[in-house]
């Protein structure tokens, strides 16, 4: 089937199999491999992206289900290659090691900060409860998100 999407602001089309998951179409048919495939059960969150303004786990959705949707992938969150304050905070606070969970963590954190400019540690931990990380023990991720909130005065 022909799948039409707006991907990171650009209208794109691709021929996709109805059996393809959204994450598979984004990686294989649209060539954006920054979003990762982890568990394919909806547990790990590595495939998280934004669809029509809401973050979703893109392994839980058929690609054809997203027909016409406006999608933001991890490649689309930084303007012109300039890291966002959130990405900078993950970098400076060592908020990742292997980086596999990172795209999903960034989307979960971005979603939190869009709704809550001054999150508590509990808020942060709740916000990332759908994203698994096997390297950091989460501590540095929580620190990174807290640092990003503090570094973004327009959110305060």
């Amino acid at each position, binding site marked *: 089937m022909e799948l039409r999407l707006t991907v990171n602001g650009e209208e794109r089309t691709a021929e996709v199999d109805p059996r393809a998951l959204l994450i598979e179409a984004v990686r294989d048919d649209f060539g954006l491999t920054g979003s990762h495939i982890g568990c394919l059960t909806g547990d790990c969150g590595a495939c998280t992206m934004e669809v029509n303004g809401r973050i979703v*786990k893109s392994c839980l959705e058929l690609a054809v289900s997203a027909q016409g949707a406006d999608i933001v992938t991890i490649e689309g969150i930084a303007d012109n290659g300039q890291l966002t304050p959130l990405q900078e905070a993950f970098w400076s606070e060592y908020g990742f090691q292997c980086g596999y969970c990172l795209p999903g963590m960034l989307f979960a954190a971005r979603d939190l900060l869009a709704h809550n400019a001054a999150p508590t540690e509990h808020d942060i931990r709740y916000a990332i409860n759908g994203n698994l990380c096997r390297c950091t023990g989460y501590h540095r991720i929580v620190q990174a998100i807290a640092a990003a909130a503090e570094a973004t005065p327009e959110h305060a």
Partner: protein
Amino acid sequence: MIKGSFEYHAPVSLDETAELISSLEGETSMISGGTWVVPEMTHGVRRPKHVVDLRRAGLGGVTRANGSLVIGTTATYADVLDADGDAQVEALKAMAVGVTGGAQIHNQGTLGGSACYANPGSDVPGALVGLDATMRLARGEARRDLPAADFFGEAFRTVLEPGELLTAIVVPASSARSGYYKFKLSESSWPIATACCVVDGDRSVMRLALGGVSPRPVLVEVAVGAADPDAVSEAVRSTEFEQWTDALAAGSYRKKIAHVVARRAYLAAAR
């Protein structure tokens, strides 16, 4: 890529959906949020001949009708959390907040899908029975309503007939207060036992349902005028029900803790 092959259908209205699924032959899977059906297909647990995607069928959204809350089958947990709520909806919101999997699952998972999946160890069935919700069903041109308490059959089974679908869940208007409590083993655990309790202005129990402890939700009979946690505990202890065991917990354990879970739900409602 999902293995095997299926025909994909994306009907664009309730009438078209009802007509379509009553005419399909062979195993049919319905996608509401997709959070169970899609991974089950990915992992080969489910191999349908037809996939009916409800997302364009106009069955989403949370609306008010005569004060009642009408939750479309494809309305998500996030939609419920965003809805204006009267007192009775508090338990439903408390339930939605506690659904595991992050904002992503709140944005994707649907109450209707969860009800139809009817996993005994899940939040939605017990909450709907506790709130005395009505399930709106359609099959071809026929429409019928069922109380949630009559909707759940054996584990992972509802009383939906072949070719029939859930179109909406109606939570009745009420000024009563409600409370929800879930006991789970860890942040990412499925519920071990849940309780949903509705109380009147005098903090007397009007309705109490347990989830997770039995293949289907258990409606607990509580003495008229019971207005303290001990009476709630006693009512749960003296209720007989078939036990539910899965990989997370034994039925005997769930039964043992059910009264504590119920009293916490009561305290949440009566606070």
